[in-house]
């Protein structure tokens, strides 16, 4: 660690001599690169705004709505399914209609709900890109988009699960779901033991994003503080 009063000795590019307070090395003002497609997006967006097709506020609102979606929505769906068997049956039969009941808009994709049981553990991946049930879980985690996860989840799912701290016994089948086209997948994790009598909202706190992708189980109440 550099002491704050230590004099710096880097070369100034303009070569002039001056005295000023030492400062930590500067980081570039832009933290990413202006790629071809970013420039294209900016150009098209500005053009559409200039032509009055959309407004800057439309763009801002769309981003705000996108960012407002979070795993909390998926957790609400799961907690309802855990507490209401009739809702669970509707959720498995027609997921889009069932999540609309809770005021969640499924969007253009068809949701498929995958129920974990004593005999089946489900895991979701998109090997071709990064299809993800954004309507119910928000934006995907970075690892979901990594080539390592995308290739290995389908090739050696049990090893990947183990790295996430999830050991699936041999008598439980691992069902991997490769999201390649127009379906989006939500895992319905098993309800943890010791949760009898818990309220729906307390149960929702146990439902993590990772448990709805299938890389983990829902939290048990003892560990959830």
């Amino acid at each position, binding site marked *: 660690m550099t002491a704050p009063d230590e004099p710096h000795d880097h070369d100034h590019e303009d070569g002039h001599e001056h005295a000023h307070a030492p400062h930590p090395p500067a980081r570039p003002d832009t933290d990413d690169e202006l790629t071809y497609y970013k420039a294209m997006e900016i150009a098209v967006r500005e053009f559409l705004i200039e032509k009055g097709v959309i407004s800057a506020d439309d763009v801002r609102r769309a981003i705000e709505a996108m960012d407002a979606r979070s795993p909390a929505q998926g957790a609400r769906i799961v907690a309802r399914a855990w507490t209401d068997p009739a809702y669970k049956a509707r959720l498995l039969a027609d997921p889009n209609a069932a999540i609309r009941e809770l005021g969640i808009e499924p969007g253009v994709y068809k949701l498929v709900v995958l129920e974990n049981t004593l005999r089946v553990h489900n895991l979701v991946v998109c*090997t071709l890109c990064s299809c993800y049930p954004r309507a119910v879980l928000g934006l995907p985690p970075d690892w979901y988009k990594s080539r390592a996860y995308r290739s290995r989840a389908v090739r*050696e799912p049990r090893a990947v699960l183990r790295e996430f701290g999830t050991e699936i016994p041999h008598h439980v*089948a*691992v*069902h*991997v779901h490769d999201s*390649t*086209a*127009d379906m989006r997948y939500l895992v319905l994790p098993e309800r943890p033991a010791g949760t009898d009598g818990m309220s729906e909202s307390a149960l929702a706190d146990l439902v993590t994003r990772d448990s709805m992708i299938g890389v983990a189980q829902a939290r048990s109440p003892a560990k959830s503080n």
Partner: protein
Amino acid sequence: MSAPDAVAPQFQAGDAVRVRFADPPGHIRTPWYIRGQAGVIERLCGTYGNPEELAFNRPGTPRQPLYRVRFRQSQVWPDYRGAATDTVDIEIFQHWLEPGDT
């Protein structure tokens, strides 16, 4: 006579199918690792615009039946080390499927 908007589904849940082994250019949504593999129809998902057409800003018609096809992991990967009951389900469009041997 105009072409129908959607192709009629040819398979139903439980049918044995095989994924065509082909390597056409373009925007293909059939993962490489599953081409040529045998599986079973898990369900018909509906009919959807053909992504190989949509990717080039064409209408994607006639829409293609889309299925979820289930494959045994131990068949897909010869050195697979999980349980014999492990499976992988993949969404595959009808024009990539042919009847399998039962």
